[in-house]
């Protein structure tokens, strides 16, 4: 049996879910109500479908080239130098995404829990955490995601379940919203939260059966997207659209508005935020892993570990660039839009060209075993 192909379908799904669910969940309901007040769950759903297109393209590409990552097969499809330029863009984008994720979470922590701690410290701690773990191989990477998967899913579902008793269905009606103004930009902003799913292209070459990549991405997307929709629905259901618009991190506020029965813990916001460290960590890990691994492949290095520490200062400086939280969110939105082009259009282009030029990677699995 091939020793490097160890990752199962469920692990891929877990990787996708825990990558997608990250710090973006905290302001998610705000994005959604700004787009379409009481229709927030609907717009989230639309964004999920939108995000799924990119994932679909990636898994189709991955199944066409089951032995390679996007860095490698893009060279086969569109030629060496255009592909390298494209890969470099992808790498830079994910480095930026890593830094923004770290910064965003650093801001959340500094605003709500550790008020006097410098944001630099919280950011560097998260980045160091991701760096150490990035130095592992892809199997351990999959294990890490798989292990944290329930730790991410259940606290979120738990908060939602506890808050449901305060929810009011009227807040979610009409389901198509009252004021459909910023629908398209809003949907794009939310869809940008799914960009982490690009990690799929890095792990397909290690899948035991790459043919199942599509199934894995459907499962992953259903879970992650479902959680997104549920969280938005619960937040809007509890607060109402107008109140949600006044909150910077409505999901965190949702945790604040719930308490455990019997007053074991009086409030859950700090606890929730702390558990959410795992969710943010897995997201960071994915994007950083993608960055370093792609960089390693681009430079034809056998080992990507070298880059883990090498890139750290750059990512850290990037993270420190936004001057304040408002500017940071402006940048997050902007980068998200640019990223959509990259994560959607680039794979689409690759897939199209590969179909037209009838390029295919070497198959593995059942065919190879025969």
């Amino acid at each position, binding site marked *: 049996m091939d020793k490097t192909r*160890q990752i*199962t379908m*469920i*692990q891929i799904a*877990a990787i996708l879910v825990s990558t997608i669910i990250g710090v973006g969940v905290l302001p998610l309901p705000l994005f959604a109500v700004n787009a379409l007040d009481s229709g927030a769950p609907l717009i989230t759903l639309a964004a999920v479908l939108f995000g799924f297109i990119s994932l679909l393209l990636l898994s189709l590409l991955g199944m066409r080239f089951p032995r390679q990552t996007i860095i490698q097969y893009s060279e086969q499809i569109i030629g060496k130098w255009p592909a390298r330029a494209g890969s470099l863009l992808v790498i830079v984008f994910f480095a930026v995404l890593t830094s923004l994720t770290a910064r965003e979470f650093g801001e959340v*922590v500094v605003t709500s*829990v*550790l008020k006097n*701690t410098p944001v630099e410290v*919280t950011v560097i*701690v998260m980045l160091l*955490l991701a760096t*150490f*773990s990035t130095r*592992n191989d892809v199997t*351990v990477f999959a*294990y*890490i995601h*798989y*292990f*944290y998967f329930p730790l991410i899913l259940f606290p979120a579902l738990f908060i939602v379940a506890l808050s449901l008793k305060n929810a009011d269905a009227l807040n979610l009606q009409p389901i198509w919203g009252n004021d459909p103004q910023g629908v398209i930009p809003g949907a794009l902003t939310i869809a940008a939260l799914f960009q982490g799913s690009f990690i799929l292209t890095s792990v397909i070459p290690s899948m035991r059966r790459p043919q199942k990549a599509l199934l894995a991405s459907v499962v992953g997307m259903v879970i992650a997207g479902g959680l997104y929709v549920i969280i938005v629905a619960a937040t809007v259901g509890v607060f109402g659209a107008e109140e949600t618009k006044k909150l910077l991190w409505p999901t965190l506020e949702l945790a604040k508005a719930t308490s455990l029965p019997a*007053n074991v*813990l*009086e*409030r859950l916001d*700090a*606890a929730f935020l*702390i*558990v959410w*460290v*795992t969710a943010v*960590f897995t997201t960071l890990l994915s994007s950083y892993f993608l960055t370093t691994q792609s960089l390693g492949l681009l430079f034809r290095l056998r080992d990507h570990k070298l880059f883990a520490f090498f890139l750290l200062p750059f990512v850290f400086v990037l993270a420190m660039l936004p001057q304040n939280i408002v500017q940071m969110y402006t940048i997050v939105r902007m980068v998200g839009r640019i990223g959509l082009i990259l994560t959607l259009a680039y794979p689409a282009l690759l897939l199209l060209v590969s179909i037209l030029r009838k390029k295919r990677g070497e198959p593995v699995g059942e065919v190879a075993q025969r």
Partner: protein
Amino acid sequence: MTSTKSASPFEDNIAFIQQQCGMNDDFAIRRFHVFGQYPAVIFCYDFMVDPQALNFDILKAMMYLPPQLREADIKPDQLLDIVVNDTLYYYKIKLEIRPKLWIDNLTRGRTVILIDGIDEALVLETRQIDKRAIEQPATEQVIRGPREGFIEVLSTNLTLIRYRLQTSDLRVKVMELGRRTKTAVAVCYMEDLTNPDLVEEVHRRLSKIDIDAVTDSGILEQFIEDNHFSPFPQVQYTERPDKVVSNLVEGRVCILVDGSPLALIVPTAFNQFYQTVEDYTERFLLMSAVRFARLIAIIFSLIFPSLYVAIISFNPELIPTEFAVAVAGGRAGVPFPAVVEVLIMEVSMEVLREATIRLPQQVGGALSIVGVLVIGQAAVSAGFASPITVVIIALTTIGSFATPAYNAALALRLLRFPLVVLAGVFGLYGVMIGLILIANHMLSLKSFGVPYLSPLAPGIFQGMKDMLFRAPLWWMPKRPGLLQTQNLHRLNPDQPIPPSRNAKSPLDLSNMEEEER
């Protein structure tokens, strides 16, 4: 005595042995005549051999001709044949021609007999070492389950395994490790079960060891484990033969070391450290609950103090208002921050624990009570620690004793300290960072190729039946998947379980019918 130029090779050999071992006072040399005519000499280390066997089964037998050969005339070239085949009442006889190996055999407690005119020496297994009786395992006691534990002597330990596992598929390969101690190390596995790659890997790692002394299995462990810097043990040890046997039939490999009562089991996953023999001998429902309590104790012993520090110093809004105010009152006189207070208490608790282990048993119990009184009550009344800290530390310490495996508990206890420090710096955030680091480390660990957190980490649902809870045995028909055994099923999955028929239905009873009438 030693003459450098003697005529016969016989005398040369005696001189050689004497030169090697003769200066030891516990070395015995006895000259005699085989069948009253051929000169011979016996060598042995005095106190390592069985004198009874030596006197009667060997010496006596060799001095007299066997009755059936009384009449025969024994020629020198027949001598060896007759001695081995007709004379000696002894089944463990080897012939050895290389003088160097005679010495090796002698140091191992065997007896070497040289006969004039014969080049080969007779090597007899006469070793008799005083050993303690088979007792109840001290560190792994059970209420329900076998009471036997390994002792130091390898042969006895192998016996204990073999009589529990009476099959020809049990392979025992003995190798010799330690340049000076020449310790016998036995590798046991099931021929038709265990993954051959695993067996090969164990042999490979063992054969690479080249050290002076192997005095215990713990020494070996440090040379064959995967990650030397990890606080977590990656090899399990046990002194229970039944545990070894059940691990063997699961497809693991066991390593026994002569002179050590602890067998090593590889590969090891973390969940083995909180499983006990009783989990399987008692009813599954109850033991699942007990195992759950054990898991909680593990988690307690790891994170409780850091959680306390984080909540008290960083997030007091998490605890109920009245309690928070009361805690603040309890802490009002304490001069240190909670981190320092907890660290001091933890360290003194460790000191106390260590002292209790070192002390003789009779004193130890008394000391621990005195210690708890001193540390707890006095510390509080001296304004040195708050009462709640004492409660937390006590819970933590007790929690760490609930883990069945001492080395795993030690690892978690050690990791508690960095967690407390992290909690003191970053509060709950720091605790979580620490836990993530620990979890990531555990996820990246492998023991002989098996992921340390299996079956959780690669996600083998079959194995998870024996992780958080213990499923009924009939519900776990397969061996642990990650060991990649050659044979998958440990029980026939089609057997009717639970037994579906009553032996006697109350309706069948005749006296019931009589009562009817």
